[in-house]
């Protein structure tokens, strides 16, 4: 049902992909490259243009300008053809609660025109993949969050697409299920399925092969998490533990070489503007100001730090707030928790 992509090892390519709604530019000259068989994390706060981009890639929305190919199919010329070769899983899971596990799978198999003879084996494989064995006859509405999530993924994969779009697939799911789910999609990607996933969780993002950051409709960075960190992100990040955290924060915020100060639990996290600055310098500065400091050390920048670093200074605090609110609203820690 899927055909080889002619002369390209990219599952998704867009060129200056743009979508306007009236005067508002939702997606602004986006150049996206998703290689075949990779796990691509598409990141950005709400309203950044993520879902508009996804809708154009699914063939639902016509670009105002620019274009691109999805599995080699032109998304302007043949949007309808794209629909049958991709898989799509939404945040809402799109399951019929009063249908059983296998009825849901059968339904999507029919909708995606899996040939009758292939249907049985495909569904059996999906049940196995999603670890739903023994629950085939259970109503989807009675499944718990993690099972529902995996069933939704199985439904999106039942026709064997080579490219799947996952739109915030872990929102509102408990941390253990999230970890299992990421293990599952990691395995799928390793077996050759291209996966484009949107997420608010920065810890999830670090598990991707490639990240694309979208902000205000523009792709502000694209690359492997490690390479983005080493090449794009040049500002050291430090953590400080002090006796009086609030005073330490005030002192550091007033220091011009410090770009950002955030409180993380009982510690402070600093983004430092000057690469020459060492942890010892920070400790000295605090001591001079009369703040008793337990320790200061340099840490790995998180993906969130990366993301925020692309945005100019006055917008940083607001963006952090947005990202934090999103992570909180979708509750709990992530798969990387406790590492």
């Amino acid at each position, binding site marked *: 049902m899927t055909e080889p992509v002619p002369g390209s090892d990219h599952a998704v390519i867009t060129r200056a992909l743009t979508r306007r709604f009236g005067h508002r530019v939702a997606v602004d000259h986006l150049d996206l490259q998703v290689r075949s068989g990779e796990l691509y994390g598409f990141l950005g706060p709400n309203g950044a243009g993520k879902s508009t981009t996804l809708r154009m890639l*699914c063939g639902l929305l016509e670009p105002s300008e620019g274009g691109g190919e999805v599995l080699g199919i032109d998304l302007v010329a043949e949007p309808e053809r794209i629909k049958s070769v991709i898989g799509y899983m939404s945040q809402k*899971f799109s399951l*019929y609660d009063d*249908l059983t596990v296998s*009825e849901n799978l*059968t*339904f999507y198999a029919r*909708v995606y025109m899996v040939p009758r003879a292939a249907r049985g084996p495909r569904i059996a494989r999906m049940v196995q993949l999603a670890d739903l064995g023994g629950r085939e006859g259970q109503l989807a509405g009675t499944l718990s969050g993690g099972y529902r999530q995996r069933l939704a993924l199985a439904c999106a994969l039942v026709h064997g697409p080579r490219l799947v779009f996952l739109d915030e697939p872990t929102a509102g799911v408990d941390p253990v299920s999230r970890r299992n789910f990421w293990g599952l999609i990691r395995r799928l990607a390793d077996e050759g399925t291209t996966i484009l996933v949107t997420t608010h969780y920065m810890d999830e993002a670090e598990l991707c092969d490639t990240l694309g950051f979208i902000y205000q409709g523009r792709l502000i960075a694209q690359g492997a998490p490690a390479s983005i960190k080493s090449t794009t992100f040049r500002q050291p990040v430090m953590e400080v533990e002090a006796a009086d955290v609030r005073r330490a924060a005030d002192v550091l915020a007033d220091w011009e070489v410090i770009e950002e100060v955030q409180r993380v639990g009982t510690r402070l996290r600093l983004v430092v503007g000057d690469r020459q600055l060492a942890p010892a310098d920070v400790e000295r500065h605090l001591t001079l100001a009369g703040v008793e400091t337990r320790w200061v050390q340099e840490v790995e920048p998180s993906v969130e730090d990366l993301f925020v670093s692309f945005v100019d200074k006055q917008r940083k605090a607001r963006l952090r707030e947005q990202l934090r609110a999103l992570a909180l609203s979708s509750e709990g820690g992530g798969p990387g928790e406790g590492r």
Partner: protein
Amino acid sequence: MASRLLGIIVKEFIHLRRDMLALVLALAVPVAMLFIFGWAINTDVKHIPTAVFDQSGSLEARLFLEAMVNSQYFELGRRATSQRELTRLIDSGEAKVGVVIPPDYARRLARQEASIQVIVDASDPQVATSALNAATSLGAQRSLEVLTQTLEGTRLGRQPQPPVDVRVRAWYNPDLVSAIFIVPGLIGALLMQTTITAMAVSVVREREKGTLEALIVSPIRRWELLLGKIVPNLVVAFGQMTMALVVAHYVFDVPIRGSLALLYALSLVFMMGTLGVGILLSTASRTVPQAMQLAFLTFLPSIYLSGLLFPIEGMPTGAQYLAAIIPLTYFLKIVRGIILKGVGFGHLWPSLVPLVIFGTVVFSLAVLKFRKQLD
């Protein structure tokens, strides 16, 4: 394509099977409605509680009262001993009708100038109408009898004939049974209610659950999705209709004089419009309760203005214009025409034309709106 359409149809039937309550309701409600409307509601009110203030106490008065009872319309209860008591009985609602017979009734009757006062509590127009009609015709009948007797006593000595003999023959429903009039109409109302609600709810539920989103991303076509939802809906609607017809025929003795095939075929035309309304409502509502409320809003005018319960001829002109744009009005004419009169297509087409126009316009509009909303 066949696979996608089949997928939707099969899924819709599973929904139906899983939701047993809804399915039982779908089939039981028509029967319950038939019983309520066809049996409990009778616009021809009989056995009206009647109080009498008989001041004459004569044989003639007793004869008149007996005639009243025999007509079955009046049930003589309390005998009042004064005009005031009679008024009190009517005020309190113990009696709906008061009959005052004057003291000189017998004497004046002999002189052919007797009068009897009948007071009707018209706060309930249905009762009042029945009572008025019955009392008037009783009066006319008694007069005729008195005239006849008087004439017999004259020297002419031959069988007298009343001057004008009006003979009314009630066609199609000779006993004027309300059920026979109402039950076929109910079938139309039922079809409308089911198709509008079920269609609207089945689309809105998918939107609420987020499954519509998945269908939009899937290669399914809009028409496949709609047709896949319409087919099971029609099956249920025809099931209800058949159920209602069986009960109407075997329980309420409603005769089925015309062609059932024609009835089912024309119902399909009617339902094209109502399904369209259902789809339109689904595009206008975000939640299932919203859709239900909107659906209810369309039933009210249809039920009261279509001539289902009250004759359109008796409505003020404005309401008659409204009735003329309600599709149920025309469908009721068709249902009653086929079931009660046994007429064929030749007589029905004037009612069919508005239905075809309504169906085509509304259905196309609905499909367009539906498509637009999904894009």
